[in-house]
């Protein structure tokens, strides 16, 4: 009996160790192909970036680094768009945590994170690699707490299954091997855009994205305003939120924020205007657009690509607004703190520059070959 158990357990541990070693050869973002592409571009840039913005397609399609940088000319900030389609909260916080300790991010001073809530695992994304590769212990514990509070036991079960699958490398073997043979490189025409990928460009490449656009236009044909998408302004300016962010989530974002701060990086969560009213996030560093009443242009049909995303024109508006709010939140504060310390006003203080650790470019992100080729 002992011999049998030892042999069986030994074999199982051997297989798991082998797969673990294989996984160690991959970067932390390996299962997100778009992220692989963007990381190639990010690392290959010689000047380095000061600000990175992580999030889902709402970031990928709506945050234009060049417009943002122009809006913050005086502060001389160079930003990069790390938005990738389908990123949900677990993946986003996982990517940010690892990015902060990644040597490729040593120049980065600011990390922006898209404000969103944990995603429910539906049949269509259950067992999917993208949904589980980022489920480490921290993320798993967060989702357990979050759905426990909501009494959503199906999600508890699903996240548990996905977590175990991730620990046992189920459904990942081929993908892990395949990663080493894949060529990641961002298209040349997008290189100038620092990670920004407008829908207009995607549709020109493939007709896939045009369906949702067509449906959207058909639904709102002849209208100028996307009715019902923005929350109606309440008559009384009540401080009580209509629907706040879950406390568990606020605490988790707070931990991520502290972690970033302890690594010398300023962190903020961006709450877009067309989202529900998250006005209980005072304890966080946030760029909060409110419930959307002050940003009616976001809901003009001419500024939108579809129900969820802005088009390039709308994205310019959004990015300019974001730059303004960012300046108020961070740059203003920085100036104040500089005044307090009686430092001379300049492009960047020596302290700021010295805070930039030496960039160990091309460190963990392999694939320099593909970069050269492209």
């Amino acid at each position, binding site marked *: *009996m002992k*011999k*049998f158990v030892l*042999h*069986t357990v030994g*074999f199982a541990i051997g*297989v798991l160790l*082998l*797969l673990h070693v294989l996984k160690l050869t991959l970067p932390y973002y390996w299962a997100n192909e778009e992220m692989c592409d963007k990381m190639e571009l990010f690392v290959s840039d010689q000047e380095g970036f000061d600000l990175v913005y992580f999030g889902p397609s709402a970031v990928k399609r709506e945050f234009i680094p060049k417009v943002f940088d122009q809006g913050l000319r005086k502060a001389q900030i160079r930003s990069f768009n790390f938005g990738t389609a389908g990123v949900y909260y677990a993946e986003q916080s996982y990517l940010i945590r690892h990015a902060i300790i990644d040597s490729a991010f040593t120049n980065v001073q600011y990390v922006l994170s898209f404000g969103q809530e944990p995603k429910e695992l539906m049949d269509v994304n*259950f*067992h999917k690699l993208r949904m589980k590769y980022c489920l480490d212990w921290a993320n798993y514990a967060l989702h357990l707490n979050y759905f426990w509070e909501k009494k959503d036991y199906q999600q508890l079960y699903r996240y548990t*299954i996905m977590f*175990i*699958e991730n620990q*046992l*490398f*189920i*459904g*990942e*073997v*081929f993908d892990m091997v395949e990663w080493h043979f894949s060529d990641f490189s961002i298209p040349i025409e997008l290189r100038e855009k620092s990670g920004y990928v407008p829908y207009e460009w995607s549709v020109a490449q493939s007709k896939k994205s045009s369906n949702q656009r067509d449906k959207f236009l058909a639904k709102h044909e002849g209208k100028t305003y996307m009715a019902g998408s923005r929350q109606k302004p309440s008559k009384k300016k009540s401080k009580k939120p209509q629907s706040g962010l879950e406390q568990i989530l606020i605490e988790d974002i707070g931990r991520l924020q502290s972690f970033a701060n302890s690594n010398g990086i300023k962190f903020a969560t961006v709450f877009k205007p067309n989202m529900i009213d998250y006005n209980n996030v005072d304890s966080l560093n946030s760029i909060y657009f409110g419930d959307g009443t002050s940003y009616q242009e976001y809901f003009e049909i001419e500024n939108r690509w579809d129900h969820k995303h802005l088009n390039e024109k709308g994205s310019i508006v959004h990015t300019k607004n974001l730059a303004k709010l960012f300046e108020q939140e961070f740059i203003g504060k920085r100036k104040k703190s500089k005044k307090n310390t009686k430092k001379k006003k300049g492009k960047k203080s020596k302290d700021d520059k010295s805070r930039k650790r030496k960039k160990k470019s091309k460190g963990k992100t392999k694939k320099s070959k593909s970069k050269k080729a492209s």
Partner: protein
Amino acid sequence: MLFNSIEYLFFLPIVFGLYWLLAGNRKGQNLLLLLASYSFYAYWDYRFLSLIILSSGLDFYIGKSIHKTVEINKRKQLLTLSVVANIGVLAIFKYFDFFIGSANDLFHSLGVGFELGLLEFIFPVGISFYTFQTLSYTIDVYCGKIEPTDDVISFFGFVSFFPQLVAGPIERAKDLLPQFKNPRKFEYGNAVHGMRQILWGMFKKVVLADNAAVIVDSIFGNYEDASPILLLFGASMFFIQVYGDFSGYSDIAIGTARLFGFKLSVNFSSPFFSRSFREFWRRWHITLNTWFRDYVYFPLGGNRKGHTRHLINIAVVFVICGFWHGPAWTFIIWGIVNAAYFVIEQRVSSLKHDEVPLTEFRYPTPGMVFQMALVFFSIALSLVFFRSPDIASALNYFVEMTDFQGKNSFRIGSEWISELQIREIVIYLIIVLVFEWRNKGNDFGLKRISRFRLVRMMTYLMLTLLCVHYFYGDNAFVYFQF
């Protein structure tokens, strides 16, 4: 609970550990197996446990009563009660709506404005399997083949033994019940054997069958746009899917039972190497076919009542076998088609290839390959009825298969199936065929691999990695629906 699920990955070691902690305490082990079996079943739907308990309790009682009763008429009444009760439950849950629906169709076609109501019950998983198992017990007691048991836990355990509860192999009381009564001792060789068989079954299920299923779903879902060669490929893939799925389940069941010191019957014996239909049916779903042979074919007279009656008996068994698979005309047609294959072969063929065991051949001869291919494609084509939702779709599938105009007849790939998918499935199929050919005289494909330990270990590792990759955990077994 599915064998290919995360839950089972935890369930099996826990039950295994507790079971052997109780080594030497046979009653304790049996009780644990019974509780584990009920938990295993209840994980799917606890409400239907009552059906298993009811069916087990009834046959336990009737078995004892038949044995005590001397009067023939009363014995017959008791047996009839058992048959009616078991088949009745099966009929209500599985066939009632089919008959009512067919009657309604008939009324409709006759212009009668009358419609009977449907029950629309959920189908209890495995009901066809455990009903046949418990039914065989009372019939065998009636025929005096076995003595009824007094051990209620053993009997209930025999009916609900979790490895084979939901999709067989369908065990006979004379084979399995004594194993519950005898003390079990852990044997290293037996357990290793069990693990290998589980690995082989898992490979056939999650690697071969589940990948074939993706292709099959695509082709059957878009058959109107597929080329004839692709449709033939789709039918063949469905045959491969059903084989991988069902024989995979059987291997996992038999392997699991071995871990607990039980020996279950062989259910599949390399059916792709059959050189005739007769040989095929001796290699495919063996426990069901022998059940029908013993409890339907022999009572009908078998081959002892003349040639014509013999052929009729064969046809009856095939039709019932088709109907056993599901309450639909497509299954009945499938049974009729296979009966036709069998009967025609009996009539026209004087060759008896299958009398020479396959173990006599190191490699298959070209003639054998031709015969195997003929049987394979014939069965695959009959399975179009099995897979199609209705007869019209099946017939349309055949019509499209003969439509060579306007289609690229020999194009294998399509928008819905990549050539990579096809290459992968062909590689997995070759692995299965090579291992099964090497083990054609053995219980399963991994029994004999190589005398070199390193080769064996590398084989286990390769198969395990493939299983880990494709182990998604929510692809139910095809035969659960029967």
